[in-house]
């Protein structure tokens, strides 16, 4: 069994080393691929807080991914057409500034997570899965019919949004932005998991009855986790949209919600680097096998089957064993 910290450092080395190599040998496509993996990883880090710590199987995380995407798309669309987003009750202009877009993405997806969480957390188990899926489908069909912003065709943004002092069109610089955000989210996750809130949330997943008996509100703990989770996934949606300079209703699709869950399961539910490993494996398979066949998901299915059947705790569980306990 490999020490988990050592393994995480190895993954970090891959995250930095591969793009560095690609930069030196002038392979911008590899950098873009790695950016894609990092953005997916961020989406899954978000889900892992709800799923891994809180035990909430959300099949609707594409809602937050899509909201982040549309936050970027709508703001940038209005900026490039020089029209205000709204004139009532006061004028809101579009923007091409990434920090502003990120803020809007985080705020909007948190609000959505608050509302969806309050309604969904009245249920548990398979009903929770279904209700989150239902919300995802509602957003999906809403954006399909939202003709102002391209409906089914989505929205294209011609120039990537800007970050003060950086050239975001340079693949390696945009990769750097995404990686720093991912590392920040992982650091936050690390602290969160060990904090009193994390301890209570983790117990609420395992034994809600106990949490109530010590006087804590397990539903409220899970709701806060769901909001934090939605906010992080929302931020990843904004980054994903900027990576592709395009948003469409597929960002809200239930397949995407499923993929985010798959990243977490492949890597290891509740493991800090689980989402990162899952997203890296997914993007690697997509790239390597996608060339062989359009139906490369079959191989992904086999991998998932193998991990679920034989590897409790995902790839990290298989390689590093059970999580070590804190003293």
């Amino acid at each position, binding site marked *: 069994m490999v020490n988990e910290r050592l393994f995480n450092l190895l993954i970090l080395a891959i995250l930095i080393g591969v793009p560095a190599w690609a930069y030196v040998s002038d392979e911008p496509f590899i950098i873009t691929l790695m950016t894609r993996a990092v953005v997916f990883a961020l989406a899954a880090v978000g889900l892992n807080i709800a799923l891994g710590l809180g035990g909430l199987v959300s099949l609707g995380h594409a809602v937050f991914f899509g909201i982040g995407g549309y936050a970027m798309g709508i703001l940038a669309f209005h900026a490039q057409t020089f029209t205000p987003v709204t004139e009532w009750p006061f004028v809101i202009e579009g923007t091409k500034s990434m920090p502003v877009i990120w803020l809007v993405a985080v705020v909007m997806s948190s609000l959505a997570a608050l509302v969806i969480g309050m309604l969904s957390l009245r249920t548990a188990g398979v009903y929770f899965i279904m209700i989150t899926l239902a919300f995802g489908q509602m957003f999906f069909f809403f954006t399909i019919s939202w003709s102002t912003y391209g409906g089914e065709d989505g929205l294209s943004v011609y120039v990537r949004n800007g970050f003060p002092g950086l050239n975001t069109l340079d693949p390696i610089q945009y990769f750097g932005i995404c990686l720093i955000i991912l590392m920040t989210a992982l650091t936050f996750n690390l602290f969160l998991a060990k904090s009193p809130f994390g301890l209570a949330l983790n117990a609420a997943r395992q034994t809600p009855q106990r949490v109530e008996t010590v006087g804590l509100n397990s539903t409220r703990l899970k709701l806060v986790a769901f909001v934090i989770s939605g906010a992080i996934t929302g931020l990843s949606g904004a980054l994903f949209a900027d990576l592709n300079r395009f948003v469409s209703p597929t960002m809200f699709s239930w397949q995407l919600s499923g993929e985010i869950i798959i990243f977490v399961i492949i890597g290891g539910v509740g493991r800090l680097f689980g989402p990162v490993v899952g997203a890296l494996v997914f993007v690697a398979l997509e790239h390597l096998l996608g060339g062989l066949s359009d139906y490369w998901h079959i191989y992904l299915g086999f991998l998932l089957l193998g991990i679920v059947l034989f590897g409790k705790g995902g790839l990290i569980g298989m390689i590093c064993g059970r999580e070590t306990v*804190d003293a």
Partner: protein
Amino acid sequence: MLEPILRTHGLTKSFGALKATDDVSIDLLPGEIHAVIGPNGAGKSTLIAQICGTIKPSAGRVEFLGKDVTSISARQRSLTGLGRTFQISALAMEDTVLQNTVLGALGATGNPWRFVRPALKHSELRSVAESALERVGLEDVMHTRTDELSHGQRRQLEVAVALTLDPRAFVMDEPMAGLGSEGSIRLTGFLDELRNEAPILLVEHDMDAVFALADRISVLVYGKVIATGSIEEIRKNADVQEAYLGDES
């Protein structure tokens, strides 16, 4: 006369035509251990659930520390000082013994909204947790995962978590269940001391423990309290002998 810490008035719970508890009025005085015994299906678990607030009674009231708590939630009852241990351990099995106990200490502070400093580095939480573990004798296995504990150690941990909340009264659902004879003797000794801190309403099948500990015993049969009294009174009671003790001899 001492004011009871905990009192029920005519607690009744009907499931359809079945009355799981029927007009149960019992009380718990300061410093005492009041045992509730009765055959399987007598309604003991339903009674506990109603006292602790996880089941709403069909009729009747629960009074705790002189206040009517019938309408408040289980969580709020815990906050006012009702310490409960479960028959089937409700512990976070993937967490360590210390983490489970720190959870109790965290609950007692009422503020889980702390997101940065590790829970185990909060010295005030940790000292409450560690002293509770020392009292039940689990300090040596503090860093063991709960699912690696023996059955008896889990029962001890249940009590330790309840202790962190510094309760004014304990409600214990079969704390001896599944303990070996040595384990139940040790726990009996511990509960004997604990009563000086807070009275205990003890639901228990282990008659040796009940007779060693109880100041008073109530016998519950088919949801009704058929007798309440000292050990001697209960032993002599003809109804009880017929309904319950007689079955075993």
